[in-house]
């Protein structure tokens, strides 16, 4: 009996030493390496090469070719003709215009509404059941558009939809929201606004939270009028986070695809055909891979521009914080 614990100890002790030695050997190899930073980066770089660089080169290369999956012909080099074709294409300019309208109204309305509601929620810290209320408020943005978008089709449905029940109650007429040339875009916008206004509320709350309490109290003591208080005290601190939020929202609105695809498939006609939908349709319904790659290159350039703006604002804020 007395022997057992000691032998157990010895038994457990021995592998530990070996393990320790093994580990020490392994660590030395890593610790002495000059390339340690690179070793840490290696997995990401491999991922990067496989899933970004290769597809990117593929895309850029393909944009110089005439390649259709339907004809079964091998890709044919046509130089910049795809890009000239894009420039002349009525559909491309149309969808860029639709995207612009969509982004402009979606981001504009979401920002205004989000700021108003965000300010409303500013003093909500002792709201009973706050956590549940905020969960309900923020849930639209984390739910998949594949589900909510599909379901909004039922809500907009002319015969069974609740939306048309409301319009008949109020206006006495039915509107085929998603099938009507004029109404399709506002209907899609409404869903987007429902989904993403909570995001702007969140951003506004964060922005308001970044205002130092002391300055707010000073303004309170000075009895600054409400509007001045907002303009001179709140906004200088809040503006960076607000701008970041607006740029992020612009980028996301520019990316919109599965929501509209679920709601209208870009229709009726091409009333809601934003760039994402055009790309998808040309690539996977028209199977013109060369042409779609060219359009994808263009959207990539636009995305790079947006990202630069985002980073510019971010650096502005860092510099502001340091000085």
């Amino acid at each position, binding site marked *: 009996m007395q022997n057992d614990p000691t032998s157990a100890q010895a038994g457990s002790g021995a592998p530990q030493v070996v393990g320790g030695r093994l580990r020490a050997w392994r660590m030395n190899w890593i610790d002495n390496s000059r390339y340690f930073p690179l070793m840490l980066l290696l997995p990401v770089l491999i991922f990067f090469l496989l899933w970004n660089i290769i597809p990117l080169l593929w895309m850029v290369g393909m944009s110089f070719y005439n390649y259709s999956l339907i004809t079964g012909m091998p890709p044919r080099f046509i130089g910049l003709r795809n890009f000239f074709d894009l420039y002349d294409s009525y559909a491309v300019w149309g969808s860029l215009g639709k995207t612009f309208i969509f982004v402009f109204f979606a981001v504009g309305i979401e920002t205004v509404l989000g700021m108003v509601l965000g300010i409303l929620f500013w003093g909500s810290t002792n709201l009973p059941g706050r956590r549940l209320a905020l969960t*309900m408020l923020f*849930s639209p943005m984390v739910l998949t558009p594949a589900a909510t978008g599909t379901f909004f089709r039922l809500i907009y449905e002319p015969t069974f939809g609740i939306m048309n029940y409301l319009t008949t109650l109020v206006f006495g007429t039915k509107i085929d929201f998603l099938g009507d040339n004029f109404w399709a875009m506002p209907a899609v916008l409404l869903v987007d606004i429902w989904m993403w206004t909570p995001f702007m509320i969140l951003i506004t709350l964060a922005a308001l939270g970044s205002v130092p309490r002391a300055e707010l109290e000073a303004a309170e003591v000075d009895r600054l009028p409400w509007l001045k208080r907002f303009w001179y005290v709140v906004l200088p601190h809040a503006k960076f986070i607000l701008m970041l939020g607006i740029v992020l929202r612009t980028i996301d609105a520019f990316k919109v695809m599965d929501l509209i695809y679920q709601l209208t498939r870009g229709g009726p006609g091409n009333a809601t055909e934003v760039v994402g939908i055009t790309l998808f349709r040309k690539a996977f319904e028209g199977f013109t891979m060369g042409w779609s790659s060219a359009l994808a290159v263009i959207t990539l350039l636009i995305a790079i521009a947006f990202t630069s703006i985002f980073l510019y604002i971010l650096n502005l804020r860092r510099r502001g914080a340091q000085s």
Partner: protein
Amino acid sequence: MRTNWRQKIYHLVLWLVSIVFFLPVVWIITGAFKTKDDLLAIPPKIIFSPTLANFIDLFSRHDFFSSLRNSFLISACAVIVAIVVAFLAAYSFSRFKPRGTDFLMFVLLTVRMVPAAAVVVPIFLMYTAFGWKDDFWGVMLFYAMFSIPFSVWILKGFIDGVSPRFDETGIVNGGSRMHVLFRVILPQVRPGLIAAFIFNLIFVWNEFLFNFIIGGKKTTMIPVSLVTGSISQGGVDWTFVAALATVYLIPPFLAIYFFQKYLLVGMTFGTVRGEV
């Protein structure tokens, strides 16, 4: 007394706003418990006798459990791979600042900012050429890549917030670099890890387009089966959509209930810190 009364009105208004935003979701969830006639009834039925028939129908579909399993498995594996890889890279970016750090961070962000519809074309061509379509590893690793940029951004922000003094102390006291990495730094960036984990999980869980294009029978996740399975006999099977959507909405909803303080960091790439 009067302020108390005013505060009650204020709280009531806040709750009303929250409920208004939640109404469409309520409509989906109640729809899942209605019969087809009740769901399509005009005027809408507020009061109805709930039925579980839709869920029984849903669970009896042979592809439901396979796509549920795919959804869980693919999103969890992808996010775990992404976070491990991203943590190492973020540490390297934050501490050693190798040449090209700024450029790589920029590129990583751009990857996330490009419209999915633009990325999907070359990915589709590549996957067809390599024969990776409808392959668990192909789809899972794609989603890992999908999650990496966001994770690197979040984790770099958090590691930047940990003073390099900790690393130095660790090294001086004889700790190895791996010890510093996993025993000193890792515990201090736990909020960042949690935020990256939860939000990547939500993003992958919600992703539709890529799964639609590069997935197949073996790798179908729920959004795709929701979209493709919703059509029956020419019309849309609304009760099926409602039931499947209800099951599907539960995890994201729970995630933002329990991890609400990470919501801000999660929705802004870790660039805005703080609680709401």
